């Protein structure tokens, strides 16, 4: 997958802005930032052709720390800001960073529409299952019954499954990674970057202040074998220290099995390019939460017309048909008369 033909013109340090990073010590956002800075040189892009756009939240501070162009916008609206930017400037690399509240609560509408349009933006959702910046209220990804300051008796809201939302919105690229595995993050972000369209990546991110350990059940070293299912394109979906577990399609539902009991041949073959999103959806919903076997990696990567380029093609077609811009002609287009 790694494109070895690119000779880096930058170093990770070139991507770090001069701003002091102000997340809480131990916050998972740091490791995501490091992964991004380390990845950038190998993407063959330059800081001046790269824009990070965000909304509001802890995660949304991300653009300040990258030495690229950046917009720290308003709560929830980053996908919309990025859509305008990507349309006006299809030449740029546009990344969108936000938290679970930012992207699925106040900005849920913009997220799904950006995904369905397939505008070339790379959306990274840092899911910590909590509102970090406002100091710990439950979020749209918090588990039901979550006790927080705004839900002292437990939250009543059933959570969103971010990947299922993205797939439901017809996203053409859907992936998941986590803040405890830099290589996996880098590889996943790279794949998102390579995708010609909207890419959606959920990043499990630990908020060690307000929701510490939310993903430990799957991301902690000793739990990974048992509970992380790495999706590898073209390979049977298998996990465990020796591949002793696998996933099968049981009449439309993904189910975890002992590989030995069904045989490798019966395991689901992972095909991220499958146009029908049903299998990806089924896999996205395999785990009820980050405490049982959970797939990570690229769930879906399909080709679909990219929005900004499609818009550019319309401009070209219009020029072809109506001729180049001509103010004089425009003013006379409804007919004129002389006095």
């Amino acid at each position, binding site marked *: 997958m790694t494109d070895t033909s690119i000779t880096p013109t930058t170093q990770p340090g070139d991507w770090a*802005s001069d*701003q002091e990073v102000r997340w809480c010590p131990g916050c998972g956002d740091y490791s995501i930032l490091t992964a991004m800075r380390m990845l950038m040189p190998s993407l063959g892009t*330059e*800081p*001046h*052709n*790269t*824009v*990070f*756009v965000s909304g*509001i939240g802890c995660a949304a501070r991300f*653009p*300040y720390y990258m*030495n*690229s*162009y*950046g*917009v*720290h*916008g*308003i709560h929830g*609206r980053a996908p*919309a*800001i*990025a*859509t*305008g*930017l*990507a*349309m*006006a*400037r299809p*030449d*740029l690399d546009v990344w969108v960073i936000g938290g679970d509240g930012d992207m699925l609560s106040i900005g849920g*509408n*913009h997220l799904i*529409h950006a995904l369905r349009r397939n505008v070339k933006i790379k959306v990274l959702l840092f899911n910590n299952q909590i509102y970090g910046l406002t100091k710990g209220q439950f979020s749209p990804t918090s588990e039901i019954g979550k006790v927080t300051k705004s839900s002292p008796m437990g939250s009543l809201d059933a959570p969103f499954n971010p990947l299922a939302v993205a797939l439901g919105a017809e996203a053409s690229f859907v992936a998941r990674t986590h803040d405890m595995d830099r290589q996996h993050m880098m590889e996943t972000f790279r794949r998102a970057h390579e995708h010609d369209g909207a890419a959606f990546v959920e990043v499990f991110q630990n908020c060690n202040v307000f929701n510490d350990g939310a993903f430990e059940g799957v991301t902690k070293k000793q739990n990974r074998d048992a509970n992380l299912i790495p999706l590898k394109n073209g390979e049977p979906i298998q996990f465990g220290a020796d591949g002793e577990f696998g996933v099968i399609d049981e009449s439309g539902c993904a189910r975890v099995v002992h590989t030995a009991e069904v045989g490798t041949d019966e395991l689901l073959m992972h095909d991220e390019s499958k146009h029908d999103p049903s299998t990806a959806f089924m896999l996205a919903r395999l785990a009820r939460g980050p405490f049982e076997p959970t797939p990570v990696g690229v769930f879906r990567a399909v080709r679909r017309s990219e929005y900004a380029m499609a*818009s550019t093609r*319309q*401009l070209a*077609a*219009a*020029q072809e*048909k*109506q*001729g*180049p*811009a001509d*103010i*004089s002609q*425009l*003013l*006379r287009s*409804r*007919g*004129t*008369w*002389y*006095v």
Partner: protein
Amino acid sequence: MTDTASRELPLQEIDEVIIRFAGDSGDGMQLTGDQFTSISAALGNDLSTLPEFPAEIRAPQGTLAGVSAFQVRISDFDITTPGDAPTVLVAMNPAALKAQLHNLTQGGALILNTDAFNERNLEKAGYSSNPLDDGTLDDYRAYPVPMSQITRDAVAEHGVKPRDAERSKNFFALGLISWMYTRPVEPTFEFINTKFRGREQVINANTAAFKAGYNFGETAEIFEAHYEVKPAPLAPGEYTNVNGNTALAWGCVVAGQLARLPVFLGSYPITPASDILHEMSLKKNFGVRTFQAEDEIAAAASAVGAAFGGALAFTSTSGPGLALKGETLSLAVSLELPMVVLDIQRGGPSTGLPTKPEQADLMMAMYGRHSESPLPVVAPRSPADCFDIAIEASRIALKYRTPVIVLSDGYLANSSEPWLLPDVDSLPDIGVEFATEFNGTNEDGDGIYLPYLRDPESLARPWAIPGTPGLMHRVGGIEKEDGTGNISYDPENHQLMVDVRQAKIDGVDVPDVEVAGDVDADLVMLGWGSTWGAIDAAAGRLRDDGFEVAHVHLRHLNPLPANLGDVLRRYRAVVCPEMNKGQLSDLVRARYLIDVEHFGKIDGVPFTTGEVTAAVRKRLEELSGSN
């Protein structure tokens, strides 16, 4: 038209006529009115139009709610309004008559499609007896015409199904009115041929219906005369007929050319602003990118993103949408990026009166954002002025790197007037330069880019767009340190930034106001936006009646022209007609401590000249009494 004209009717010359076509929304009244307008424009009349649509797309047929009307005034002199009351009403059915009769001047002409006055339609319109013969029309000159029947007969030979045949009756009406006002017929034949190209049967039917209407006038012996309205003494040149929304859309497209920037429009459909989105979507050959967003917030946000990318960005909407855009506009104020918001005001609160105008978003435009979030506000005064205002708003936005709000309204949006086309070369150059180089140094003496280092004169910050090597920077809504733009929570810095953002807007170069009319009068009428036509016409009437009156009309509402206070203080009375409860009056009072007298109306109908004249005359009489 027929060479067998059976009788010679006198041809009377009149200086103006105000015709209102009214029918069911399916009757094609807008098309009829539009075409009558085009022919009259080509004849050289001055004109002004006022369409009136129902809010529902297909309100039940034959009901009052479904009435669609189009008023057009043509004259042989300079006019600024579509006229207070029609002198001719064409009513295609009882509902149209019922809904519109009260508008008609006493003694006005009433042309009625008698075929539609059957029991069912009368009942739907709420008539308990037939107005054709119960005395309702005694005060008017009623001309009953069996339009449906004659149309059906006329189109029969073209093989049109009887049900479809009647659909041509608006062309019958157009033919009749064309005869009455001696309009040439050829342009309408051409229009029919172009409009319905490829549909031979429709072309033939409409042409036949039009001819039948024209001939009916000539031969039916129910009319006493026909009329002629001579051309108006308009400034010589090439004219087109535009409504405000079209002119505004063209202004935005042209502003992009004048700034040498690609145009971006983010918009969410809403009456009466949607036509701007439609029109700009047709101009893709100008490099105009239109984005129909998922809501008004996304529409505004996409414009912010496009502006960051170096486009001339617009977002168009009406009041409910402007309310939604508030937070995003405040972001644009903080980011100090250029963009233009087009607010086509309509009646409110809430959904209010979607198809009716109001001027009640002024305070929202001024203050409808959290915290200290100043931005320039401008307002066009006439349909054609919408073109210029789009360019002026873009100029301010680009020069000062600020969002600008344009306040048009539903009246200007749909009303049209002849527009003397500007000389393209005379249009201003509104281009600005992007930053491409460092504008500061750090402690080590290395060059750096300071995104909030301002131009000392305009206080605008530099605009470096992504793709520019070396000038990478981050902008955000969190308070920024002066110069560097880095996050800053420093109290003194915040005070400074608030002050400087305000000073920048206060310092926008706005031309002084000029006083129209009698500069030395006792009373000045102060207006803004679409009331210009009615106020100007009222000034004319008052002067004709021997009064002296001055008129000051604001195009720039924020900042206000520097001389405004001094000018207004010269008058004993300042009367401010506006379609709201006193928003400009309050702003001017607060700002200058001048006792502005508000004269308001919020009934969804633009001021008539008569209303303004009467109110101001009363005040003038009081003033002369107290001399």
